[in-house]
């Protein structure tokens, strides 16, 4: 290639060509981006609070059974002689109506909740995201059908529908998770569809088509990565909301069943012990609250930093 009479645009590239680039150099953009994220995240007290709550929750879910004083409490061990004791040195959160340590059950319950949250949001996203992308990208009757069904689901409040489903399938944590997954995916379809519709109009999609990319390639390499931020934000928030919904069903008596240490189910039992045995419902309730709060604050913080409008800051 012949040299041109162009004015120099940037530092010349001859010197760099020879030397292999270090990781830091190659990924300077990503590093800067992540540092920017971290910087913005750190600035917000509420985001940091959310992050710490979530981290604590995940740690408890991971190591719960090994750090609690009475791990057998989670699997239904009973000790009628020490039932309904108020919080004390041995039983930090007191004991329940079967004499099980509430502290142990609450901590180990993090696992159940994590499982619930991951499965529900996972299934919902796995169903909703592809359908949303398909509906948004394809348009026409495919979109009409998908969106009609989605709107149908969205016209019924999720909890009411989930209630009907669990009532029909019978109570239990699996059915509860199943029911919530069934009512959860339409939210993703709507989110992703709207996002896809706007991305579809972007020039880079046409650009990809002009170089001969197939539809799957475009969906995977162009549409999906650009939908990712809102999906991540929604999933983070939904983790919390799914846990809350499962607990709600547990509270009505249709969710997880004993001796499974699920917080909602614990409150469902514990509410009959209000107000005199307040610790019984207080601690599982607080656990739900803090966990959901954590995921929501985290999601909210993520939204702030992933918002494209704040990208170039």
């Amino acid at each position: 290639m012949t040299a041109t009479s162009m004015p120099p645009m940037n530092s010349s590239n001859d010197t760099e060509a020879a030397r292999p680039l270090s990781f830091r150099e190659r990924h300077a953009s990503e590093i800067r981006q992540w540092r920017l994220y971290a910087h913005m995240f750190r600035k917000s007290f509420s985001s940091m609070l959310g992050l710490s709550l979530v981290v604590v929750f995940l740690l408890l879910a991971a190591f719960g059974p090994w750090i609690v004083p009475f791990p057998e409490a989670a699997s239904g061990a009973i000790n009628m002689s020490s039932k309904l004791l108020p919080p004390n040195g041995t039983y930090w959160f007191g004991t329940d109506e079967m004499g099980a340590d509430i502290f142990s059950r609450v901590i180990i319950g993090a696992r159940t909740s994590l499982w619930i949250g991951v499965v529900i949001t996972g299934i919902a996203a796995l169903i909703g995201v592809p359908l949303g992308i398909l509906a948004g990208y394809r348009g026409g009757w495919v979109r009409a059908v998908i969106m009609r069904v989605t709107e149908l689901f969205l016209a019924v409040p999720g909890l009411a529908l989930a209630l009907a489903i669990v009532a029909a399938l019978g109570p239990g944590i699996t059915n509860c998770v199943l029911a919530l997954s069934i009512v959860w995916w339409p939210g993703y379809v709507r989110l992703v569809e709207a996002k896809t519709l706007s991305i579809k109009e972007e020039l880079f999609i046409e650009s990809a088509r002009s170089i001969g990319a197939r539809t799957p390639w475009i969906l995977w390499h162009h549409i999906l990565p650009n939908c990712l931020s809102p999906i991540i934000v929604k999933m983070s928030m939904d983790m919390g909301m799914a846990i809350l919904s499962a607990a709600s069903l547990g509270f009505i008596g249709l969710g997880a069943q004993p001796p499974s240490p699920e917080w909602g189910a614990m409150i469902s039992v514990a509410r009959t012990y209000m107000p005199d045995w307040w610790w019984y419902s207080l601690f599982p309730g607080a656990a739900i609250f803090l966990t959901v709060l954590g995921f929501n604050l985290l999601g909210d913080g993520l939204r702030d930093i992933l918002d494209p409008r704040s990208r170039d800051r």
Partner: protein
Amino acid sequence: MFGKIIRNIAIAGLLASSVLATPAGAFERTDKGNVIVFGGRQAIPVLDPHIRYDWSTRMMQQAVYDALVKYEGDPADIKPWLAESWETSADGKTWTFHLVKNAKFHNGDPVNAEAIRYSFERGLKLNKGVAWMLKDFLAPEGISVVDDYTVKFDLKAPYTPFLSFLPWWYIVNPAQVKANEVDGDYGQKWLTDHEAGSGPFKLGRWEPNVLYEAEAVSDYWKGWPQGDANRPAGVIYKIIREPAAQKAALQRGEADIVEGLTPDDYVQIKRVPGIAIEDHKGMTTFGIKFNTQQGPTADINLRKAIAYAMDYDALIQVYNGAATLETSPIPDAMKGHIDVPGIPRKDLAKAKEYLAKSAYPNGGITLPYVHVAGLEEARRIGLVLLDSLKPLNINVEIKPEQWPNMVANGSKVETSPAMTSVYTTPVSTDPDAVAYQYHKNSWGQYFAMMFYDSPKVTEMIDKARSSSNWDERAKLYADIQTQIVADQPEVFGMLQNRRWARRDYLQGFQFSPVRFTGEVDLYPLWVKAE
């Protein structure tokens, strides 16, 4: 942070208890007099006495209707009511009842023999609710009006327990019912939330799922036991679903009597001044029914092993001591009950011995334990069972089911779970009411989920129910009890006490074990003014 919350809550708790100590407001007063408020969890969807009965429904039915006879007292006794006397023929097939002359329906119509005949005919023809009690022995044609105040029943076969069912057959006013008939429905639609009775109360406000009001009939034909001065203006049955709310309502005086607190609540609330606990031995048996026809529990050795592994003391602890262990399938308060010797108690060595003889000498199996969703004690007993079977290396999966699903699954051997917890309240004081649960004809019913198949027991039951000689029957029932215990179709549990918490100014509470859990005879209640 937690510490602070705990401290705050503890302070809140202290405050709460101080509030509890202060005298709460009293019963509701209206210009007509005192209205007693009963707080309960269960709604009354259909009042029609021939359609439906459960404890809340029957409590209200009993309030607005009368029957020929009535159960009263502990032990329950059959008292003359609309019928002042009756005779049986020698063959035990014909029953003649003589009615009181002064009974009248709320609209003023007299309660006569035709009303009795019509009510029984209605019950049988609708084939719902109470029909099962009599329909095998009584046809509508078998009821005849002898004169205005005499009615005669001709049974298809001798049936000694006949009388014990009659308290549940309430008498409706044919004139009112016929006037409100739609498309030959025997007035079903109308009677859902109206009454056509002669009882001590008539219906006041009827707000489904909220409250049901019974207004006292000032000139009730049988008079009022507490005296007209003390007679309340009425009773409101208010739906309060949460035990916590029930307790609060009682403490605040928004309710005068409540049912359905937790066992721990009763212990705790007993200490509150101004509140009294009614605590009575009941007839409701609890059993963990095995499926004896299919699956691992078809093996009697396994059943015995489980029965011996069960922590019976914990059962009592679940009720905070307000229960007694069953010593026989037949409850203590029932005629013919014996203490069956050798009924299993916790004995791990024996349990392991039996387990060794079973097909699962080392355990390693998981058995489902099904209970009615929302039944707190049944759930907790499930936990006790789970804990008890751990030494046998048997795992228990606790599965709550909605009642209809549980019954539907339990109606067939194939779908019936290995273990189901069942509370059964006999509808009469006759031992047949319990014994017949072990009769092969009962298969398919929820209380026969064990699918117990003993030709010997079946034969003895048939013989006992047609005999009118009590001594002969008593002997038969003793043998029946012994044999059933030997076959261990279920883990025999406990008889829970019936409990209510009431304000201490509420007087006249009369317990009768034959009533359902929670059910109260509203008729004799009254409020003692301070």
